[in-house]
């Protein structure tokens, strides 16, 4: 069987985190009673006039700049005409054309597993509106809720030919893009609520072939995991089909989360003839240099740049830095802890292990927890100064996480300070040796394993607070001398 190459294009829709809708002033929210956030504009009633949301436009402009796009000098809205019950006007307001979208010809860098960087080209970043929601009614018919109708939607599409060549890269692209959108504060990134939606198109071709294979589009992917699994499944399905001498059908397929397989979907586009034309109700947008500059200076340091800076400044691994910078607030925690004088490596280790684990269990971010950067700095300093052992530190952290007490206060209150005083430890070792002549005799006869027994005795005598490394050393030295 020949070996195959996969090509993956990504189409991402992000609901913009505005307070009101794209072309009217109805509020934007998730859930709620159906058809309670609607008005003549978002219901498409005759005679209503849309006016675009300035904040939504600026969000797309900032995203386009963050994704290294060229910004359109003149950008207009088009009508994309088709009939569907979730589309009240009979058209969706969108942006058509190669150089008309607010941003075009950009790129984003994504980290690869081997530590290198891959550049994924972006074809367009444009502004449009979301549709309503259809639901199946048990008593027959379909119900339409227009609360989502007209919510500002940003579409980000990768370039062709595709740069993404594996399921892992597809997932990493989405991770990086989502993180960028969160840093920019333009989208809440909730894939499970549909505010970030990803529709990859996938094709495979035999190695060496210049022609791209027929592509299928994948829908219903509502987590990073399903994006990775879905794309991998689709690549393997296509390769297997070609191996059997079948042809790939150009179609839209749905991802079945439970069965972990894709299935052909019945789709609405009987004909892809949208008859785009400039919306006469919406006047053109022009982004002058002042507006671009204002957007440019408002950009935060983006996740990948931050990760690179951490790696340079603190010598942490690329993987550690990626974990620290995936979320802006998380990165802030790290920076504050380091600014308070803690060494980066142990701070990073605690953040990415015990702390992250507890936050995940509670499903909260650090700001909602009782742990502040000062807590972690305090804990790290207790360990670095040998005041407590690594094992005790885990207990102390758990206690601080529950109560919000500073780790040093927990250590004092519970008497957990580690004994690292050599004289004190050696005295305890001597006592143990004097009290157990039989075990000493065993040691002398060559059963050196009994050293462990003495370590245990000393640990017990000190209530478990002696520094275990020092106890081992002292026991060994004392037994040698007996």
């Amino acid at each position, binding site marked *: 069987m020949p070996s195959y190459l996969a090509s993956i294009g990504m189409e991402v829709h992000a609901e913009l985190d*505005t*307070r*009101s809708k794209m072309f009217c*002033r*109805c*509020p*934007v929210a998730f859930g709620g*009673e*159906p*058809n*309670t*956030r*609607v*008005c*003549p504009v978002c*219901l498409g009633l005759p005679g209503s006039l849309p*006016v*675009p*949301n*300035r*904040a*939504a*436009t600026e969000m797309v402009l900032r995203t386009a700049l963050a994704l290294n796009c060229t910004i359109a000098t003149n950008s*207009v809205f088009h009508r994309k*005409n088709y*009939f*569907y*019950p979730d589309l009240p006007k009979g058209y969706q307001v969108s942006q058509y054309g190669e150089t008309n979208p607010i941003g075009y010809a950009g790129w984003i860098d994504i980290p690869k597993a081997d530590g290198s960087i891959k550049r994924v080209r972006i074809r367009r970043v444009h502004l449009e509106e979301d549709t309503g929601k*259809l*639901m*199946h*009614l048990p*008593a*027959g*018919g*379909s*119900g*339409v*809720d*227009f609360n989502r109708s007209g919510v500002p939607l940003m579409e980000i599409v990768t370039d062709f030919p595709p740069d993404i060549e594996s399921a892992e890269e597809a997932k990493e692209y989405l991770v990086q893009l989502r993180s960028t959108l969160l840093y920019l504060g333009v989208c809440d990134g909730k894939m499970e609520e549909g505010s970030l939606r990803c529709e990859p198109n996938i094709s495979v071709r035999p190695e060496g072939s210049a022609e791209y294979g027929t592509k299928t589009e994948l829908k219903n992917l509502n987590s990073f995991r399903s994006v990775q699994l879905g794309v991998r499944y689709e690549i393997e399905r296509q390769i297997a089909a070609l191996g059997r001498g079948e042809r790939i059908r150009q179609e839209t397929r*749905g991802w079945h989360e439970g069965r972990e397989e894709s*299935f052909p*979907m*019945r*789709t*609405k586009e009987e*004909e892809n*003839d949208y*008859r785009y034309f*400039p919306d*006469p109700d919406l*006047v*053109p*947008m*022009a982004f002058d240099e002042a507006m671009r500059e204002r957007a440019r200076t408002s950009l935060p340091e983006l996740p990948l740049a931050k990760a690179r800076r951490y790696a340079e400044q603190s010598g942490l691994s690329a993987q550690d830095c990626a974990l620290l910078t995936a979320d802006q607030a998380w990165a802030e925690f790290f920076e504050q802890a380091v600014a308070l004088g803690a060494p980066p490596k142990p701070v990073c280790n605690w953040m990415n292990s015990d702390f992250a684990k507890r936050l995940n269990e509670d499903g909260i971010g650090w700001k909602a927890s009782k742990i502040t950067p000062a807590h972690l700095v305090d804990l790290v300093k207790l360990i670095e100064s040998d005041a407590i052992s690594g094992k005790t530190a885990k207990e102390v952290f758990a206690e601080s996480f529950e109560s919000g007490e500073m780790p040093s206060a927990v250590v004092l209150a519970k008497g957990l300070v580690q004994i690292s005083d050599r004289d004190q430890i050696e005295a305890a070792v001597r006592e143990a040796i004097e009290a157990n002549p039989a075990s000493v005799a065993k040691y002398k006869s060559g059963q050196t394993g009994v050293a462990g027994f003495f370590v245990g005795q000393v640990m017990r005598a000190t209530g478990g607070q002696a520094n275990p490394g020092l106890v081992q050393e002292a026991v060994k030295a004392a037994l040698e001398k007996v």
Partner: protein
Amino acid sequence: MPISLDEVRHVARLARLELDEAEVLALQGELNALLGHFADIQGIDARGIEPQSHAVSLQNVWAEDSPLPSMPRSEALRNSALTRAGLFVVPTIIED
């Protein structure tokens, strides 16, 4: 370029218009008359004139991002032929 009968049928289908053959023929004539006016415009020398998408010279008209009250749901649903539980009801849509 005159519009063909098939093009009339295609556009009618996109617009969800059910036309009989007599109507298709009549519309072909009307559409071709309309397109004739565009042919007049085609004849004008427009070299050096920037294409425009709008007749007005306005640009960058925006609304502020702050919500205003929506309309009462009863009012929104008032003209609908069929509603249930606050939803507009339409014939069953088949989508997996």
